[in-house]
Each structure stands twice: as C-alpha cells, then as structure tokens.
C-alpha cells in the first residue's frame, strides 16, 4: 500500500475506531480540561524549542507548520 493511500485511510480508520470504543462523556472531562493536560500546554517553550531546532537541525514541522521565518545561521 502506498504511503499516500495509507495516510488518506488512517484518519478514516481511526475515526471509526474512535467513534465506537474511545472517548469519555462530557461530565468525565475534569482532568482533561486542565491546562497541563492540553497537548500543547506550554506554547511559548514549544515555540522557542522549534526555533532552536529549526536553526540547528535539518528537520522542522510536525506538531505545527514547518516554516521558520528566520534566516537562522
């Protein structure tokens, strides 16, 4: 199976799996609503890290857009 096909199919499969078995009721979200449980809980540090690694390594992006907006040396 090509990578493209796999990538296209992945969300659909996960979505269906998610719909049937995973998740919580709205009143069970107490802990998940805490700021420290957000997937991006410290955006400033994440931004600073992205800037450092963008300028020191050849990879970028993943959790956000890959563009660096700097002429980093």
């Amino acid at each position: 199976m090509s990578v493209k096909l796999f990538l296209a199919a992945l969300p659909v499969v996960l979505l269906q799996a998610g719909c049937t078995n995973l998740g919580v009721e709205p009143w069970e979200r107490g802990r998940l609503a805490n700021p420290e449980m957000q997937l991006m809980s410290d955006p400033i540090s994440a931004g600073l890290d992205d800037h450092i690694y963008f300028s020191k390594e050849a990879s970028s992006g993943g959790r956000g857009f890959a563009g660096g907006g700097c002429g980093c040396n």
Partner: protein
Amino acid sequence: MQLKQQKKISQALTAATCSLLGMNSTDSLAEEGDWTFDSAILYYSEVDRVTAVEPVITAKRDFGEEKALNLKFVFDTLSGASANGATPSDQPQTFTRPSGKGRYTASAEETPLDDTFRDNRFALSSQWEQPINQDYRTGFGVNFSTEYDYSSLSANANLSRDFNKRNTTLNAGLSLAYDTISPEGDIPIGLSSMAVDRGQADYRDEFNASRGESEDNKDTVDLILGLTQVIDRKTIMQASYSYSDVSGYLTDPFKIVSVEGDDGRPVEYRYEQRPDSRGKHSLYWQAKHEFESDILDLSYRYFWDDWGITSHTVDLRYRWMLDSRQYLEPHIRYYDQTEADFYRRFFIQGEALPDHVSADYRLGDMSALTIGIKYGMELQNQQQLSLRLEYYLQTNDNTESVIPGILNDMELYPDVEAIILQLSYKF
C-alpha cells in the same frame, strides 16, 4: 500589596497592547481578567559559538464563546561565531567576510568560524480563533518577522471539526509564507570560488565576479492534517501529517566548501549551492497520560524530504508533582538524521563539482541529545513561574570514503554543545 502591584503590571501591559493594536483599552477592559499574559526569556549559548537571548511575551484576550485573540512578540539578539563549512587545516586559513570588506582567520587545527555573525530579530504574530457552529471551529493568523538581512511574512488558516461528543477532532491547516533575504555584500554565485584579498590589485574585481543579485526570495506552502482523540479520562492522543513545499533561494549565502589538494590542504573555497526547491513531510504522534497527579508526555516524529534527509525525533517529559503547587519536569529528546544527497564535508581537487553542494554540518549525518529539567511553581492568583535548564549535544558522523593527507589529523566533525536556560512567568 503584591496582588495590587500585579494588577498594575497587567493593566499597563493591556494598555500597551491595545495602543499597539489601535484599540481603546478601556473598551477592551470591560471585563476584568479578559487578558492573560505569558512571558519568557531564553538564554541559549553554544560553546565557542552562537549566543542568543530571546524574550517573548504573548497576550490572549478571551472574548467568550470560544472566541479568542492571541498576540505574540518575540525579540532575539544573536552574537558569536558560526562554522563556515571549510575544513580545519594544519596552517592558519584566511577567509573573506561576506561583505567583501575585510578578512577573518582560523588558527591552525581550528574549525573555521565566521565571527561576524551578529543579528537582532523581531517577530510579531497574531491569531484569531472562533467557532463556526457546534462542530466546526476556525482560526486565522498572520506573522511577520524582520532581521538585518532577512524578512518573513506569512498567513495561515485552519479549520477543525469535532465528532463523537468532541472526543475526536479532525483539523486541517494551510500556511503561506514569503521570505526575502538580502545579505551584506550581495548573494554569492553558487559554486564560484571565494576571492581572498592577498594584496592583489584586482581583488575587488575578483570579489565582484563572485556576486549575483542583492536579494532573493523563498516561498513556502505548509499543509497540516491532524487527528486528536480522547482515549479515556486521563489520556489524550494526536496524530498528524504535514507537508511543506519550499521554493526559491534555499542556499546559505555565508557557507563555503573546501577543495583540498592531495595533501589535504585547501586549494580554494567554493560557495555552497543548494537546490531551489524542497518538499518536506512529517508524521507526528503525541500522547499525554495523567497518573495519580503526574503527567507523562511522549511524542515521536518521522521526517523525510526530497533532499534525501530522513529523521527520527523522540521527546519524553514527565511532570512530577512535588506537591499541589510545585513540580519538577525531567525532559529527554533524541534526534537522528541522515545526510542530504548533496552534503559533502570537502572536495578533492580534480573531482567534478556536482550542481548542488553543501558542507553545512546541519545537513550532514548527525544525532543530537537534549537532557533537561524544569522546575515550576504556582503562585497566588493563578500566576505561574518556571525555570528550565537543558543541555544539548550534537554529534556528526563521517561519511567521506577518502580522507586525504593532513585531514586525517584534523577534527572534521566537532561536536556542538549548548546550554538552554529559560525563565517563564504566566500572569
């Protein structure tokens, strides 16, 4: 007393933010506590190389009903030296400064570093987010940054859709960026020989012959598709695919590559030349799980591009609650990349130069390790203070099959070490 002072700072910042936006701060402050601020100052220092100091402040105004405006100001100041790509030698080496006016030297056996590196960068971003209806949310943003020889302008939009009682979210985002580079001394012609002023009468002509346009551009289109899934009461996960198409001037105008004689001593230096397009792909996965009160945060990224680079990044953090207000968060990150197809540490005289060449260590075969710890504490009135200290070590590996003469005694792949120190304050 402390609270009163705190309120004053917050109000002063609100007024400053509003005046920058041309908004009336008394209108904006209709409800107290609408604005929240997050700030940090980063100190980054490499051993014998670059040092950066980077203050950041973000301001968020919550308009209720999930509508919010986010503003971010970043200022960074960089100084120090950066490896120019040339190999060390057993004799001192002389290089021309990017401006063409003046020279810099590297002592014998020393990695050649361009010590003229100094810059200030200012970046401003704003992001608006709001729901469209019960299931759809959208966001728009613009970013601008400027430094002495570089500027960048970008705009982005994203759309997300919730399913399954908001346990599943699909997200799609698009970003367009336009960057301009205008280096001191104009853009060097790729693969041309570096003219070095040794007192010859026609040095200036030689230098000018190696120069092209005064500025060039780079266009970037970024796409991201993501899926977030709540697993259970204490676990959340996300997976995303992102694609970045970059075209235009992707070369580093300050980097060169050494052409060595059979004895391993440099005969000349050529300006590097990279392809004028690059397609980058990433698959990213992240999970967060809360134990009794501690939180585990694990992520993995697989990256590949059409320059022949592939990389793996694993990042692990563990927030260890010391008590209800304080925590310690150890962090470890491991990164490993393969080299670009056109990466060469050096050339040997007589070898045909390919169309694209770079000796920039950041495009070479390398691995990197970050180890750090963060201490955080909650103060009164939901203020938070944290301090993190990290150590970064980058190790480059040799992929040259033949190493001539004296280069066998040189350190061709020095490690890069850095210290990262960050103080954050949320109020």
